């Protein structure tokens, strides 16, 4: 087990190194951060050259990459061109808001998708199943931008029940979580339904039923628990991508998350922030994957980490 974890961590280092190469060179393919910085003011060509050299952008690429890599080893992502703040600080300031939104979205998705998916599977082929599947189709098809604005119009402007922007209290978390959760729940409900169907057709379910255990007890204890495995994998992966991939929801609800930080940085060609942000997300992604793999042995004791999940 320990050897497995260590091996996976070494694996992480390799992944981060490869990503650092890709991100470092790809951000430099188009655009010039210095020209962008001069959107107001009097940028003569001398001034632009001067600023470029002050930011170290006139050094050969290999040397710039070396400086970046050296910083990475000491967990120093450098300073933002735009704000002059350390990139680490910028990321950690937003971490809590980002995690809160990702968890909120997953919570809503579970709240909707588990009952819908289980009911659909149990009542397969009936009207309940039909509505369940329609619901998940709609969930998948919603553009989250539109859904967010509609929720604001209904619940903030018309009914005035909930705030529409900001990250201040649990109340502010509700609408963005629903927006995110709705989209997620569509896919999740389908996944729960199909895994449940697979499990419910197994012999041990019939055996359990024939022992006279109540139907719902069989469904939940024997069926659901076994159907959980693919669902957890899915949610784990989603959690990782939600940390950086909720830009549109962050934009609509003025949520101070990491996604917006990186998108703004891309628009400004703020290299240190793009690099630091992407590397950070990559690390999170690999760690979450590892945790998901390790959790398998909790859900299904037959799987031993290190063998079962390879």
């Amino acid at each position, binding site marked *: 087990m320990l050897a497995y974890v260590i091996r996976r961590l070494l694996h992480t280092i390799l992944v981060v190194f490869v990503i650092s190469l890709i991100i470092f060179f790809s951000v430099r393919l188009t655009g010039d951060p210095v020209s962008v910085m001069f959107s107001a003011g009097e940028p003569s060509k001398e001034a632009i050259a001067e600023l470029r050299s002050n930011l170290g952008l006139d050094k050969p690429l290999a040397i710039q990459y070396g400086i970046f890599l050296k910083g990475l080893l000491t967990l120093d992502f450098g300073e933002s061109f735009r*704000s002059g703040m350390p990139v680490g600080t910028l990321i950690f300031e937003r971490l809590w808001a980002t995690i809160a939104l990702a968890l909120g979205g997953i919570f809503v998705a579970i709240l909707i998708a588990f009952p819908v998916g289980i009911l659909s599977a149990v009542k397969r082929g009936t009207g309940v199943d039909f509505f369940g599947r329609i619901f998940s189709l709609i969930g998948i098809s919603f553009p989250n931008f539109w859904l967010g604005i509609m929720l604001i119009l209904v619940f903030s402007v018309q009914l005035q029940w909930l705030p529409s922007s900001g990250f201040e209290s649990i109340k502010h978390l509700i609408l963005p979580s629903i927006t995110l959760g709705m989209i997620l729940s569509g896919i999740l409900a389908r996944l729960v339904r199909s895994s449940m169907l697979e499990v419910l057709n197994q012999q041990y379910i019939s055996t359990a039923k024939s022992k006279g255990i109540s139907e719902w007890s069989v469904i939940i204890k024997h069926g659901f628990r076994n159907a959980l495995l693919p669902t957890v994998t899915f949610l784990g992966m989603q959690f990782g991508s939600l940390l950086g991939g909720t830009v549109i929801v962050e934009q609509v609800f003025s949520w101070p998350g990491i996604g917006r930080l990186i998108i703004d940085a891309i628009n400004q060609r703020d290299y240190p922030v793009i690099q630091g942000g992407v590397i950070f997300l990559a690390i999170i992604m690999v760690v979450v994957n590892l945790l998901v793999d390790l959790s398998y042995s909790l859900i299904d004791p037959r799987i031993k980490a290190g063998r079962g999940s390879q």
Partner: protein
Amino acid sequence: MKLRGWKTLILLMVLTLFLAACSGGSSETGKGSDSPTGKNPASDRGNEVVIGLSSDPQSWDPIDTFLLDWSTVATSVFEGLVERSLDLELQPGLAESWEYLDDSTLEFKLRQGVVFHNGEPFNADAVKFTFDRLLGEEGQKGPQYSNYKSIKEVEVVDEFTVKMHLQSPDPVLLTKLAGYGAVIVPPKYVQEKGDDHFNNNPVGTGPFKMTEYKRDQQFVLEKNADYWKEGLPKLDKVTFKVIPESSTRLAELQTGKIDIMKRVEVAQAATVKQSDFLELKDVGTPTVFSLRFDTAQEPMDDVRVRQAINYAIDKDAIIKEILGGFGKPISTFQSDLSFGNNPDLKPYPYDPEKAKALLAEAGVAEGTTLEVFIPGNDGNFKEITQAVSFYLEEVGIKLNINSVDGTTLISDLIPKGDAGHMYRNGWGGWTLDYDNTAYLMYHEGEQWNPTFKDEKVEELLAAQRATVDQEEREAIFMELTTLLYELAPEVNLYQAVDLYAVNKRVENFQPPHEDRMRLEEVTVK
């Protein structure tokens, strides 16, 4: 199975209709009175105003910034030696008076008894410190330094007198001293706390002091009780909220969560106007938009072709139909707020016949295709370009529209001359002096002028920089604008108009031309 597929589809369509009906309903009611009772939802906020902005400038240090949103907030916190009023008049700020001792020496008499928000006194040392920092190592790392390179150094004469020695005459220096990099910072505070701290906790002499800064969320300003202007500011508190999405900003305004909304979109103007408790305010800005030609490419190297395209486009119709009237026609690449604007020049009239004749004369074949590059994130301009494409088709030119990433366009394609035959060009010109625009747009080899050159233009550009005599400069600009009008290096489309939406409980709010909100006179009902 087949039958079920059909059922699904029908049900889906019904549901879609239902949802569409819901959303239609909500926006319809939204158009009328916003709250069912017609009561102003922000009426019990107290002596405070909340303002919704679209972005956070990220850094409050004046030497690090280059953003309009910085000046929106920072104008209330920091002050310069000179002040520029909402009507764009230069007036005394932290300096009570100034005088040119000779062409390269400017003497300032400073205001006495002014203190920074942290209690530090304002005096000649603070002025010297500010400019040493701006022109020194710290400042050279930022984008503001280049604006103030004409200053050699500041000399302290006595506690309330300074002399500014100049490298070269700078006709726009005084207006530059009224903002951005030249606002006065507290020496002891900056030295003791360091730049990072100052970045997040700005201290100036302005009417309000910043008491809270939550990056990307909100900034709180509170009244500076020791402000040097008698009886000001009138508000106790101003909160700025960062709300990037404009429809969310409008929702916050409709529910009374904010009182003033910056950057209202043209499409939102009607909603604001129909509300009982909101007011729409529009104001002309220094920002202008054009389609700039790459004069190195055929057939744009022929002045007749450039003029023909100017005649072919009905700019008034574009302003009226696409911008909802919120834009003003321009004859050269500057607004009527700019020093050097030529009121005698009228925009090229819409005359497709003349355009056709000029094109024929230049030997441009019917059906010639031209490439135009525009930024993909500007929806309004995309529509404008489509209209331009329609007008050009009428005179036999096909336009191929390339919509590209805005940052790549500005920082990569335009400087390299890779942006087709023409491209969107937008320009702010915060100094409100045509020098700022013309020099960088038409002087050979500048960042955003990869190809245009003309000897007479160069001569005039250099001449206006060599003198501080404003009458002489104005005469040069009149000649320069007439010349550039003839040479037509671009199609000048319009001057941008900014829209602000304001809750009627707010009084004495005048929208700024150049984003610098002034809040000290603002009151609430």
